């Protein structure tokens, strides 16, 4: 009995510590935007809407959120579509050297997100006339995310039994029909997970849009957040916290919707 009770107490304590660890940093984001003159201190807010009004008046704040939306939705769509097709083919057909290829690409993708690739990417964008082009940025971002997306999706695909596809095939389904009717529905949680992952990645990406979009009207929230931080020398906590909150809400909403609808998990898991 005592062991059981101790176990329960231990479990409760652990969970409490975990909750505290993961909640503590978030408190400020909840309180500061509603406080008239916020400091770094977390205090009971006086529930003012003034900060939100100021942000709404900011010429680039709201449009930047729209820009972020376009960029991340476009990239997620492209990444999920291309990665799903590629992962499926790689999972089902033994192409020569496929494993080595995946690992090499995965390694290269980590270098390309690094700062040293800034210059080549910039020059490439200039040469291909992709500066200030949202489509260009989407293509570049997709290129960086695709290897990891393929890598993760392939494991989803590997863990779905082949007899479903064989069955569909005997009934005369073409490969594309099999993908649409059978494979996509079966790995939908995986696709949803990859989509959220891609959106979150692009939504937070500062370096690439900062580098490749000159036009302030096209710049996404990450860049605007940075300008809010630096303009005027002193950080304006009111604007920053409020914009930070607005900037965070869409990804949180997306996560909630996706996790309710498809389940947000790596079912089957990523294993090799």
């Amino acid at each position, binding site marked *: 009995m005592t062991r059981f009770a101790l176990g329960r107490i231990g479990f409760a304590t652990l969970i409490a510590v975990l909750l505290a660890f993961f909640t503590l940093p978030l408190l400020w984001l909840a309180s500061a935007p509603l406080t008239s003159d916020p400091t770094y201190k977390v205090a009971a807010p006086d529930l003012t809407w003034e900060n939100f009004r100021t942000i709404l008046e900011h010429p680039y704040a709201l449009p930047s959120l729209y820009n972020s939306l376009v960029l991340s939705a476009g990239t997620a769509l492209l990444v999920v579509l291309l990665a799903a097709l590629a992962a499926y083919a790689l999972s089902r057909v033994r192409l020569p050297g496929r494993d080595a290829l995946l690992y090499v690409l995965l390694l290269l993708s980590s270098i390309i997100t690094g700062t040293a690739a800034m210059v080549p990417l910039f020059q490439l964008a200039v040469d291909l006339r992709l500066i200030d082009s949202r489509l260009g940025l989407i293509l570049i971002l997709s290129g960086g995310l695709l290897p990891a997306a393929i890598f993760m999706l392939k494991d989803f695909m590997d863990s779905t*039994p082949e007899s479903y596809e*064989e*069955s*569909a095939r*005997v*009934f*005369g389904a*073409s490969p594309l029909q099999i993908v649409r009717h*059978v494979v996509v529905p*079966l790995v939908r949680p995986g696709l949803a997970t990859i989509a959220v992952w891609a959106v979150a990645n692009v939504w937070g990406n500062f370096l690439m849009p900062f580098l490749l979009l000159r036009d302030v009207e096209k710049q996404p929230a990450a860049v605007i957040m940075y300008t809010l931080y630096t303009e005027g020398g002193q950080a304006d906590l009111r604007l920053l916290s409020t914009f930070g909150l607005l900037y965070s809400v869409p990804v949180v909403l997306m996560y909630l919707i996706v996790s309710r609808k498809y389940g947000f998990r790596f079912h089957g898991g990523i294993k090799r």
Partner: protein
Amino acid sequence: MMAAIELRGLTKVYPGGVRALDHLDLAIPDGEFFALLGPSGCGKTTLLRTIAGLETATGGAVVIGDRDVTGVQPGGRNVAMVFQDYALFPHMDVSDNIAYPLRVKKVARAARRARAAEVGARLGLEHLMDRRPGRLSGGQQQRVALARVMATQAQAFLFDEPLSNLDARLRLEARTFLKKLQRDLGVTTVFVTHDQAEALAMADRMAVMEAGHIRQIGTPAEVFRRPANTFVAAFIGSTPMNLLDGVVRDGRLEVAGCALPVPSSAEGLLADGERIVYGVRPEYNAYASEPAEGALGGKVAIMENLGASHLVTLDVNEVMVQVVVPEGREPAVGDQGYAVPRRDRALVYRDGELVTG
């Protein structure tokens, strides 16, 4: 609509060198219910999958109807297959599952649902039409898989152990059901099983396979009564056949130290001094407690209860001989007993093959 299936010299070698089918010839006439029986790993699934086109033949030809389909994609062969795990799509309800073959052919949704309802009703699935497979029992899943196959109006059905996931009772029910269904539809059906009772009970004709070869083709009665070789003899039958080494001597057979008359099927076909294998099913042995002419005599070593009868194992000069003894006449372990083979049912094998006129 229906069609015969013919396999000519069909060979399948898997990458890695496993020869799962070896120059296999087989002709299944139109409308026949054909069972493929054999031990695990003998190539039954491979044969079925090669007919369906899921495996590419390494050599030989598959002919369905009058069309050589060896090089045709599975979808183009107009056959339908039930997989061992049924392969029902977990994300579609029963109705969509049944109508999936029509969806592939781009039939309109309303027509698909109507056809699914029609086929579903025929198999008693009306009240399950909008459930997902995950919420069906094994027997219900099996019927959905059958319904899906029926919805295709294919030329031939291929079943890979469709009953093996059912419990013993359901399996008996499904057996009767499936046989009746096949009768009614009259579609050529190839049915894989490793349960010989299933094959004997359901098939019009059957084949027994071993290691990529067919060892015997015939009606269940033929295969049961006159196994063409010792492999089939040992494999078929709920109680395995007694296969006893013997020698021909003075017009009689000397088996386990006893003298037996030559079975009628081998009469006049044996030479003196020849080594043979004497085969008789335990069911075709009569049991006697008194010495008898042409009997195998020994001590009762083991008694096994088969329900309405007993399987008695006699130790005949250190050779084990089995007899089925009807209810009420069971001996006790240690008794002296005699097995009297029926002359018209006993068989003789020479070099593993049946001696027959």
